[in-house]
């Protein structure tokens, strides 16, 4: 029980006032935790920020340079806070605390009372005291406003220097490089990331960064910043050398923002920071401090996860609980300039007697180091550069002090078959924190698995692995291990006939150039196949070789929809959807659709994909209906296939007063290119002519939006059952580049997705997420770009209208007869008229004799 407990009086109706000074990531998290608490209704929350906006994601700040907006980075909105009853005051800094009257006063003179005060003022960037550091183009990298200034300065500069070769410094260097500047990193210490990396790791990181064109200068002590000759400024170093640059970013560490505490006699640590105890309480009763402004046990925690832990502890304290902050693990895994870097625990072997294992591969550019205890039994720390897959495992081994396997060096050797000892997640205690961003323990994950929750459910419910993503691999291992315990066999085999995933089968088919299901089954499968593997393999074969799907080798693989090139309806009839590319159709063609629908009495409806759907065609009528449509210039719309369906468009610049570009024209070009591409699941596209986004492209698998600077490409959106907002893949594209990226994206999806996995779920399950996808598609990191484009070119070149091929082939037309031994039609079908059109009769209507017979239809069917 906390000492404060007995004095807390929760009188009914009167809310406790909680003031949170600072609305950064940690302050906001405190508010979220308090709102989620069962006693939330007893508190009135007010938060102050001296920034003009509410909390945003500072961890992913650099995304601001790659197209993300302030809104994308926002962690909440004003509307949301209002709905939640959270009071907020922006642009007004708290300058004084009255500890006796329990009030705060802001710069503008506003006074607010509190019962509990939480200081979450964060930190500020340390700017070394160098003469000239206050010049116009000397900036820091901390807030969204800072980034705005960096953008402005970057636009007027050719050369940029980051002072500081740590974590934040390298982030900042990425931003400069992204703006196209000649980028330099100047570091005082003799190596990069001196806090986290040992010499070997740091050396490889430096080599990789230099290979990207960033110039690294270590061991440089900047003496002064003066006017330059070739550039705006010149930095003079203590060793007599100098460097010319147009702008300078200081990113040499952070300092706790403790000014408010200092001025109001709240105790500070010896080297600054607001001192807190294990309850996150300051020297004053009812005043707490959390996040980077706090110092605990002489230590400031410059990462977000420990800040979140403090927020949790402070909420428990405020609400009468008694959680304790007991320090935090400072392990980190991150991507710096596209390079994977991770450090775990005592990564630089400070522990007396520590011993190390090293692995270095200059070809693959991978470095790993394990720091183990003197007796070799426990892991103390680790460094990984270039391959950070084992991060989660190493972190858990270290945190939980699990005995190392024999020959621990094998853990960092490359994955030679059977050589890598498995680090059983079974060894982890239930209390082991798998996700430190959201404080999710192994025990809570296992409990959810036992409740029948899937990995996706668990991620959604606990948010595990959705913060930094560092624990994604480990989370999956924990879930799979628990499933195995429950006796659920965990494999991703397609079905009982193939002991391969869809992706593996796709690789086999592609690499071995297998062209039929029979050949694949004989070589790599068993049994006869089934309704799972046959359509999946049929789809893969079509994605790569694009043969006619109804040829004798393939016909038995197709689902009924594909087998009869129509969408099977509940009464066994089919619907007919001709392609209307981009949703553009001439009145004459529209009349043809009306005439065909009228002749065959087809129920007619407009689809969401800007086409016309004609329902109720009997199987034996399909060839005749399609002959009329093909003769009138229509093609199949592939509405029946797991294939590219439609490209929806708004009317665009040709008519619209606001249109920026020709969305209809581009939509038609795109639809004509990709029409009929068979894929793991259906694909829907859209093109909008301006950012008003009338085509709703951001809910599509591929969404294209015109902007003043070119086309933006969004991918992996979804409507339907699980709506997902698409992710921005690239911006300011011309048509050709966009088509190349879409080629690569679609073929990569066809090769690697699971069976019936929409692009949205595919991306969510992709390790590295959208950033990885960008590397593959935009940066061509895997070197697959040309190959993927060539594969798509082959599909485009071999396109055929399946209905045209079918009606020209008498053997195929035969398959569409209702009876193989009779010209009779199915007499069991019955309909009623509703709103002027027919629909299938219900069982009750049939029995009551209400159904009408479609006599006219029969006459056309012969």
């Amino acid at each position, binding site marked *: 029980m906390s000492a404060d407990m007995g004095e807390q009086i929760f009188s009914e109706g009167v809310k406790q006032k909680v003031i949170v000074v600072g609305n950064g990531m940690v302050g906001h998290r405190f508010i979220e935790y308090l709102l989620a608490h069962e006693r939330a209704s007893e508190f009135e929350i007010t938060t102050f920020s001296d920034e003009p906006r509410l909390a945003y994601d500072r961890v992913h700040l650099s995304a601001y340079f790659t197209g993300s907006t302030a809104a994308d980075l926002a962690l909440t909105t004003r509307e949301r806070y209002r709905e939640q009853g959270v009071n907020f005051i922006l642009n007004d800094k708290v300058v004084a605390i009255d500890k006796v009257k329990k009030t705060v006063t802001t710069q503008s003179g506003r006074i607010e009372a509190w019962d509990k005060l939480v200081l979450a003022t964060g930190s500020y960037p340390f700017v070394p005291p160098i003469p000239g550091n206050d010049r116009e183009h000397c900036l820091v990298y901390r807030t969204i406003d800072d980034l705005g200034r960096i953008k402005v300065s970057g636009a007027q500069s050719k050369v940029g220097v980051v002072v500081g070769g740590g974590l934040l410094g390298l982030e900042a260097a990425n931003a400069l490089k992204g703006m196209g500047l000649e980028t330099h990193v100047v570091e005082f210490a003799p190596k990069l990331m001196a806090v986290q990396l040992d010499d070997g790791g740091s050396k490889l990181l430096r080599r990789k960064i230099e290979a990207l064109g960033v110039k690294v200068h270590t061991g440089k002590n900047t003496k002064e910043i003066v006017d330059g000759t070739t550039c705006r400024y010149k930095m003079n170093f203590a060793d007599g050398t100098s460097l010319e640059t147009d702008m300078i970013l200081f990113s040499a560490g952070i300092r706790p923002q403790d000014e408010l505490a200092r001025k109001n006699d709240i105790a500070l640590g010896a080297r600054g920071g607001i001192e807190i105890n294990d309850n996150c309480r300051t020297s004053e009763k009812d005043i707490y401090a959390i996040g980077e402004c706090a110092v605990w046990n002489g230590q400031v925690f410059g990462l977000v996860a420990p800040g979140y832990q403090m927020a949790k502890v402070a909420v428990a304290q405020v609400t009468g609980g008694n959680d304790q902050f007991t320090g935090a693990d400072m392990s980190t895994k991150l991507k710096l300039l596209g390079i994977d870097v991770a450090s775990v625990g005592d990564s630089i072997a400070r522990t007396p007697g520590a011993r190390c294992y090293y692995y270095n591969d200059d070809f693959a550019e991978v470095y790993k180091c394990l720091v183990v205890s003197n007796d070799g039994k426990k892991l103390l720390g680790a460094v990984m550069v270039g391959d950070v897959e084992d991060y989660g495992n190493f972190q858990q081994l270290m945190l939980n002090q699990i005995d190392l396997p024999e020959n621990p060096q094998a853990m960092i050797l490359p994955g030679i078959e059977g050589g890598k000892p498995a680090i059983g997640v079974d060894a982890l205690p239930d209390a082991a924190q798998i996700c430190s961003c959201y404080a999710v323990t192994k025990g809570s994950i296992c409990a959810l698995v036992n409740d029948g929750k899937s990995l996706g459910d668990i991620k959604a419910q606990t948010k595990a692995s959705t913060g930094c993503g560092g624990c994604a691999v480990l989370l999956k291992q924990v879930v799979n291990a628990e499933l195995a315990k429950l006796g659920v066999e965990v494999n991703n085999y397609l079905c*009982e*006939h193939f002991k391969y995933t869809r992706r593996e089968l796709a690789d086999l088919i592609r690499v071995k150039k297998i062209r039929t299901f029979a050949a694949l089954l004989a070589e790599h499968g068993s*049994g*006869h*196949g*089934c*309704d799972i*593997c*046959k*359509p999946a393999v049929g789809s893969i074969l079509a994605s790569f070789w694009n043969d006619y799907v109804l040829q*004798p080798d393939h*016909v*038995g*693989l*197709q*689902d*009924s*929809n594909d*087998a*009869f090139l129509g969408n*099977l309806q*509940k*009464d*066994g009839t089919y619907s007919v959807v001709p392609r209307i590319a981009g949703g553009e159709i001439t009145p004459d063609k529209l009349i043809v659709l009306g005439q065909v629908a009228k002749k065959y009495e087809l129920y007619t409806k407009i689809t969401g994909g800007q086409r016309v759907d004609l329902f109720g065609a009997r*199987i034996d009528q399909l060839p005749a209906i399609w002959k009329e449509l093909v003769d009138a210039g229509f093609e199949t719309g592939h509405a029946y296939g797991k294939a590219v369906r439609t490209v929806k468009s708004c009317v665009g610049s040709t008519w619209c007063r606001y249109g920026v570009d020709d969305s209809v024209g581009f939509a038609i070009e795109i639809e004509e290119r990709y029409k009929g591409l068979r894929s793991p699941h259906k694909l829907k596209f859209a093109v909008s002519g301006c950012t008003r986004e009338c085509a709703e492209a951001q809910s599509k698998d591929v969404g294209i939006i015109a902007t003043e600077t070119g086309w933006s490409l969004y991918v992996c959106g979804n409507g339907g059952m699980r709506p997902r907002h698409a992710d921005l893949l690239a911006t300011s594209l011309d048509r050709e580049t966009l088509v190349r990226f879409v080629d690569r994206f679609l073929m990569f999806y066809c090769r690697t997705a699971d069976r019936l996995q929409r692009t949205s779920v595919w991306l969510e399950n992709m390790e590295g997420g959208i950033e990885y996808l960008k590397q593959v598609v935009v940066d061509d990191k895997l070197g697959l770009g040309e190959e993927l484009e060539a594969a798509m070119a082959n599909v485009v070149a071999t396109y055929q209208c399946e209905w045209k091929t079918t009606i020209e082939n008498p053997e195929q037309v035969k*398959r569409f007869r*209702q*009876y*193989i*031994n*009779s010209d*009779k039609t*199915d007499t*069991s079908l019955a309909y009623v008229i509703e709103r002027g059109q027919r629909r299938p009769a219900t*069982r009750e209507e049939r029995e009551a004799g209400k159904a009408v017979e479609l006599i006219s239809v029969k006459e056309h069917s012969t």
Partner: protein
Amino acid sequence: MSEVWIGVCNEADLVIGAGVCALLEADGKTEQVALFRETPDGPVYAISNHDPIGNANVLSRGIIGSLGSRIVVASPLYKQHFCLESGQCLEDEKASVKAWQVRIARGQVQLKTA
């Protein structure tokens, strides 16, 4: 009692690896029969074309394959599997469809109706 075999179509009318539907007229009744053959020389199976779960005449349009040791067709409507030898639904023991014995005689596919 003597057996009755009725011819429904020619062997060549079957689609290998998939199904077709034939009309069977016997004892003054007409029935829709789904006929399947996996391989050119393999056995021919005959079950009712009517899916009792989806309540439509569609089973001939399902995908055939094996589940364990049983040869099955998956209904194209809601994907339940029916054993091609017995007509039994694998997912719902109360659902089953009629199955006929089949023989090939002089190139003709014949069903045993009595």
